[in-house]
């Protein structure tokens, strides 16, 4: 298991739906490891 699991999309991807309207795909959650921070034992 990686210490950091980041969803495949990064930042804000812009893609279009069937009608050509721009959709804003936000990355709303991001997992980090409680053990994956530098500066602790």
């Amino acid at each position, binding site marked *: *298991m*990686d*210490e*950091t699991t980041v969803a495949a999309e*990064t*930042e*804000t991807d812009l893609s279009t739906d069937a009608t050509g309207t721009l959709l804003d795909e*936000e*990355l709303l959650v*991001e997992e*980090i*490891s*409680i*053990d*994956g*921070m*530098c*500066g*602790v*034992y």
Partner: protein
Amino acid sequence: MTALVEQLKAGLDAPICLTWELTYACNLECVHCLSSSGRRDPRELSTDEAKAVLDELHDLQVFYINIGGGEPMIRRDFFELLEYSIGRGIGVKFSTNGAFIDAEKARRLAAMDYLDIQISLDGTDAVTNDAVRGEGSYDTAIRAMNHLRDAGFGEFKISVVVTRHNVDQLDEFKALADSFGAQLRITRLRPSGRGADSWHELHPTNAQQRQIYDWLLAHGDNVLTGDSFFHLNALGEEPLPGLNMCGAGRVVCLIDPIGDVYACPFVIHDEFKAGSVRDAGGFARVWKHSDLFAELREPQSAGACASCGSYDACQGGCMAAKFFVGIPLDGPDPECVGGHGEAAMLAASASTKPRPMMDHSKPGRVATPDRVPVTIGRR
């Protein structure tokens, strides 16, 4: 939305987790001890003061703390503080050499929830380990692990400081951890505390750094690193798992045994002291308003590393590593994989290397930068 890492670099209103060294007392005298531990400081926080800190951490909603020292189990109120912390909703991981984990203690620990244990070990055999941690310390650690396993503690951690002499044992460390159902953690040696004396002999060579990087990429699933090897990311295209940033003063910090607050456990020096939990406003005020932490939460300059294409990957490395070998903080990491650290170290002289501030070593093992390093002889 800003990248998460950029937001974390700007600091949070409370730490995510932190290290708390409960005592400078220790039954061991490891040559590389980051806190130069050995003798208890008479100014140690009292039980009541420690509980007040835990109350503050509860109010700040710190979910998890890493307790260490010295040897934290030496404190008479160790279990009292463990239970108080967990009772206040703060999970605990404590780091220990295992000397005080007997069968009865192991059972007591196994009965506790929201508790992680990390046993320190620096070699997969007594010769390698004891050269750094002292005669008998390998046996002590293994005995503690056996007690934890027999008591049904569940998954504990084995924490290894990677040195020139144990880097070839990474596979064996993994096998040892697997044999106990434990999780392996490998971390970077910093020239901090007594580590300043032994760093030049113990730190991995350039070739060994690549060995560590390659090993982590190939076998590092379920191996923790405390995000301490992000300076190696400049070696390749694939970054190591982790935030890959310095958390000091931003998302983590250290509370030392006398209540002083430092940016991280690897910079116990006035230069990185943010304040004291004994100051008016306690820990919360130090975390939120100290000048040092405000400074660390400003965007950092790449300095001498600005023209290097690897800066995004390595972030210029570790403050503690630079500081204690006398390299300016906007200079390269002494173990820069691009080789830029070597020239910087040559330029660093005795006058730029900081003098140690606090030394709780036992007599005969004082850490001074000019002293010929003592290594415990191998058999």
